[in-house]
């Protein structure tokens, strides 16, 4: 037999958990948790994704190499988002000289003003 045969019961259990978590995340959105709404929603999403990956996608019974592939992809996505974010969130740390304020610059052409034909 190639690959691992997963019992149907396991699949149905995970299915139930996924539906329950969906209901949970939907209902939690209606509760005022302030900053925590985001974290709760994303945490639940990660839990659901983990269940799908481990059980439906058989990663629980797969070789280490395939786990490394998935983790590398997630790590690389994290690199993309975090390093890009460092730019956007540290821009305000450097004050702009008053002489550079945009109100002193000539106004840019209106959108589409320079465009003669489209491609």
């Amino acid at each position, binding site marked *: 037999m190639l690959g691992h045969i997963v019992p149907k019961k396991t699949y149905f259990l995970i299915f139930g958990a996924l539906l329950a978590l969906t209901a949970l995340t939907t209902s939690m959105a209606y509760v005022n948790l302030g900053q925590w709404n985001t974290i709760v929603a994303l945490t639940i999403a990660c839990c659901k994704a983990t269940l799908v990956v481990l059980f439906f996608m058989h990663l629980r019974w797969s070789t280490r190499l395939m786990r490394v592939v998935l983790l590398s*992809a997630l790590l690389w996505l994290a690199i993309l988002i975090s390093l890009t974010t*460092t730019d956007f969130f540290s821009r305000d740390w*450097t004050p702009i000289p008053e002489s550079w304020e945009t109100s002193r610059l000539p106004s840019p052409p209106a959108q589409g003003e320079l465009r003669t034909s489209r491609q």
Partner: protein
Amino acid sequence: MATAAVGPETRVDYLNVDYGIKSWLLTTDHKRIALLYLVSITLFFFVGGAAAALMRLNLIEPNGALVEPATYNKLFSTHGIIMVFFFMIPSIPAVLGNFLVPMMIGARDLAFPRLNLLSWYIFMAGGALCMYAVIGGGVDTGWTFYTPLSTTYLNTNVMSAALGVFVAGFSSILTGLNFVVTIHKMRAPGMTWFRMPLFLWAIYATSIIQILGTPVLAITLALVGLERLFHVGIFDPAVGGDPILFQHLFWFYSHPAVYIMILPSLGVISELVTCFAKKRIFGYSFVAFSSVAIAAISFLVWGHHMFVSGQSIYAGIIFSGLSFAVAIPSAIKVFNWTATLYKGSISYQAPMLYALGFIGLFTMGGLTGLFLATLAVDTHVHDTYFVVGHFHYIMVGGAVMGYLGGIHFWWPKITGRLYPDGWARLAAAIIFIGFNLTFFPQYMLGYLGMPRRYAIYPPEFQVLNVMSSAGASILGVGYLIPLVYMIWSIRYGPVAGPNPWGAKGLEWQTPSPPPTENFPETPVVTEEAYAYGAKEVAVG
């Protein structure tokens, strides 16, 4: 059509096993697909080279000798797009990688042969789209497609060019995927990771970059296209979009892309240096791990293209520091090659000339990269010819020379014929001289302040520009010579045996040209890579 009287006897190999256009266009043999790529990228090389020739001709005069600035913009964009996406990125992986990866690990083919053929068709489709963009009016965004110029203000063939690059990206992804699976799962018995030729480590590292980086380019170009099509404002400040976001997303791929272009060449040099010094590589694991380190760190440095874009200074500091770090593994390779050469039994056939030229020119290009990684210096030389000189030293003095060295080295294996080494050495010398005459003045021009992508320049820069253009014509001659004698050798060159260089490696254990299934039976590997008379102490 039978081959000439002087040729291999009735032995069946991958070239004569079947004839006819269908047997080539529907092949799943990795060796034939490599040749399909070889012909395609050579054609693209000369298209991109023609654009460069016109550029250099124009730059003979300070006021532009040949074309209007608007046309010049289209020329450098064509040159960049074609050379980067349709020559450099596929060159070694798609030609030498496709041919050699299965042979070097002792396999019959890649893991997914039909996917391999699909990669070539996707590549050609992307190429056709870009050629349409070029011929049908041109594109003038530069190969970098910066917004808002590309999304809002231009009315040239941006869409088709972006679409062509988008499509070609998938060819790159699928090739990388094929290599990674093949190297992981199909090595012959006894071929452990640390017995693999270093070329395979380099190809593996390159494939990682192709897999993780290219999709981001794809989505970014898709965003540019959608913004043009629907006038939505993702990168448009009027709606709150940020053009710098485009640059982040674009360079997240495009910086690692330059490592896609150089890493395979670094792998080829390891093969050439060991064979033509008849010596084991010094520091095998250092060289192997440095390839992987380059691939990993390459993803952390993209902001060094954006130091003066409006990016935050603090992000700039981080990217600058990391850019210094990425130079280290490259330097490690250069040290190890030098140590390999030391007390080696060196012969100076053409592949070795290319390898030695590579080591010197790549080092120069790499060192100038450190200048560019330095925030204070880059403020002055960003977007000048200093940058142009830097990357051409790496890409042309480095990657292209590595590619040519590899093509010469494995040519007997690929075709079963020897090329004339005298002519090859002459061509290598002409290329070396022409190259330096073309690009060294560009360092000086950049340092003196001449901006890149300009069709005209102040008169005091003319002498250096003329030198550069003169060098370019010599370089062009140098590239044409191999085209002639290589094609000549296919029919008239002396027949090559299985191992004309006396090299180590599984690919040399099989006839030249190889049979379709590469090896009559699966080889078993018992010795280390580069097991040339092992008398010296090797580290690692």
